[in-house]
C-alpha cells in the first residue's frame, strides 16, 4: 500500500540583507583597518598595506588604533561609534580582522 507523507521540517526564516555597494577601484581610496587585537593582525595589516599601495596609486589607510578593538570589553561602544568614526575619517572601505 502506498502512502503520501508530509515534509516534517519548518520554514527557514533567514532574512538576508544586501551588502553595501563595492568600490570600482582602490586607487585614491581611504581604507580603514578594524582589528580585534588577536591572531597577528598587527603583522598582517602592514603587509597588506604595502602590497595594496604598490598596486593602487593614492590609496590611504586609517590605522586600526583609531577605531578601538572590535572584540574587547568595549566592543559595544566601539561598534556603536564606528559609523561616525568612519565618516569622520572619510573611510571608503574597511578591512576587518581576524576571524580565526
Amino acid at each position, binding site marked *: *500500500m*502506498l*502512502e*503520501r*507523507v*508530509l*515534509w*516534517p*521540517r*519548518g*520554514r*527557514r*526564516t*533567514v*532574512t*538576508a*540583507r*544586501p*551588502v*553595501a*555597494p*563595492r*568600490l*570600482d*577601484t*582602490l586607487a585614491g581610496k581611504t*581604507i*580603514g583597518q*578594524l*582589528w*580585534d587585537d588577536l*591572531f*597577528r*593582525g598587527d*603583522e*598582517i595589516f602592514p*603587509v*597588506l598595506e604595502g*602590497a*595594496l599601495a604598490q*598596486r593602487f596609486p593614492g590609496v590611504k589607510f586609517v590605522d586600526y588604533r583609531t577605531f578601538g578593538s*572590535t*572584540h574587547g570589553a568595549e*566592543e559595544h561602544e*566601539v*561598534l556603536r561609534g*564606528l*559609523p561616525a568614526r*568612519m565618516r569622520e575619517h572619510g*573611510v*571608503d*572601505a*574597511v*578591512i*576587518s*580582522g*581576524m*576571524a*580565526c
Partner: protein
Amino acid sequence: MLRASAVAEEAGVPSVSLTCEGFIGQAATTATGLGLPGLPVAVVPGHVDVQTVDELRANVLGVTVEGVIQGLTAAPDKTVELVEPEPGEVVFEGTADEINRFFYENSWSDGLPIVPPTAARVEEFLRRTDRDADETLGVLLPDRRLATVRTVAINGVMAGCRPEYMPVLIALVEAMADPRYGVEHSGNTPGAETLIVVNGPVIRRLGFNYQQGALRDGFQANTSIGRFWRLYLRNVAGFLPHRTDKATFGNTWRVVLAENEDALARIGWTTIAQDQGLAAGANAVTVSRFTGGTVLASVFGTRPEQMIPYLADGITRLVAWELMFTVGMALGAQRPLLVLSPILAETLARAGLTKQDVQRRLFEHARIPASRFERYIGEWTNLAPGRPTLGDLVARGRAAPLFAESDDPGRLVPVVARAEDIMVAVSGDPLRTNAYVFAHNGILGFPTTKPVRLPAR
C-alpha cells in the same frame, strides 16, 4: 569581528573580513546569522599561530591580498531566496518501508522506524487542539525555522505519539522556543540531554507512568513524547550529528518523568510546576537539560538526619564542571534535580519537613571544600580562565558573597547559590528507597515551564 564588518556594511561602507582558512565555514554561518550571507571574506592560509614571520608574509602576499581586492571591488552574488519544500507539503509516496528509508536517508528520522506522517494522521492530531495549524510557536535556532502547530503534529505522528498528546507536544515546543531555555545550546560539546517533567491531571488522563520504572521505556506517553522532543530538535531546530550537533558523546532521548501527584498531595508538598510558579493542580511541562544522572540506591534511615547526608552527597558527587553555572560565567543558574521515591518523601514529610525544608537541609549538607570547587572550574577545566579563587570571583561580582566567607581553602562551600536551586521531584516505585540525581547544564538548558492547554471540549 564579523560583527564589526556587518556594522560597516550597514553604514554603507564595503568591508572584507580577514578569515583564517579553518574558520571559513563558521564565518559563513555567522555572517548568515548576522543577516548578511554575502559578507565577503579574504582567506589567510593555514593557521596563523604556527607560521613564521616569513611564512605569514608570503601567505598574505600570495593569497590574502587578492582576496582583499576581490572582496572590496567584486560585486557579490545577488542573494537568492532559499528554496525548500513547503512545510506540510507531500514530499514522498511509497510503501511504509520506502517511507522509512526515505526519511532516514534524508536525516529526518532517528534511526528507528517512524509512523509515516500522512495528511490523515496529521489531521487526527490537529483535531485535538483548538489552535490553528499554521500558528507559529516560535523561531528555533540554529536553523531559524518556524515552529508551527502543524509541524508539531507531523513530528508527533512520526514519534509514535497518540493524537490526544497534542496539547502536551505544543506546550513542549513553546518551552523549546522560549529564549530562557536556550535551545541553541542543544548541540554543544558536552552533549547534555533534556528531561521533561509533566505535572497535573493530564498525567492520569493520558496514561503517563509515574510509578515503578518511571524513567523506563514501555509506556507510550512517556516514551513517545520523549522521542518527539528529539525529533523536533532534529527536524525543526536543525540539530544533526556531525553537522550542527557537536556533542562529544551525547545521549539519547529520556522518557518523560511524571511526578506522583497522589503522593505529593498526601504529604502536602508542592509539585515541580508549582515550584516554577504555576498554580496548584495546573497541567504543565518543565524542560531542563541534564548532563548526567545516577541512582542513589538503598537510602537508609528513618529520620532526615540519617537520610539527608547521603542524598546531599549524591548531589555533590554529580556536580563538577557544572559549577561554572553557579559562579563565574553564569551566576546561580545551576539547578540540579533530586528525584525521591514516594516512600522517601513520605519519611521526610513524617518528620515534619516540607519540600522547602528538605531543600534547605540539602543546601546545608551539599558542600565541598573551596579548593575542590576552584579546581573543578580552574585547574582541571580552565572554564574560569586565570584560575580565580572563589574570593576573586566574589570580589569581581561573579559569585554570591557566601562563597567567600573566609579564605580558608578547606572551608566548605555550597554547590548552588540558594537552597531553592536544588529542585526536588517525587516519582518512581512508591515502596523502594531509591533516589535519583541529575546534574544540570545551567543556562544552556535552563528549567522552563509551560502550561498545557487542553482544548475547550
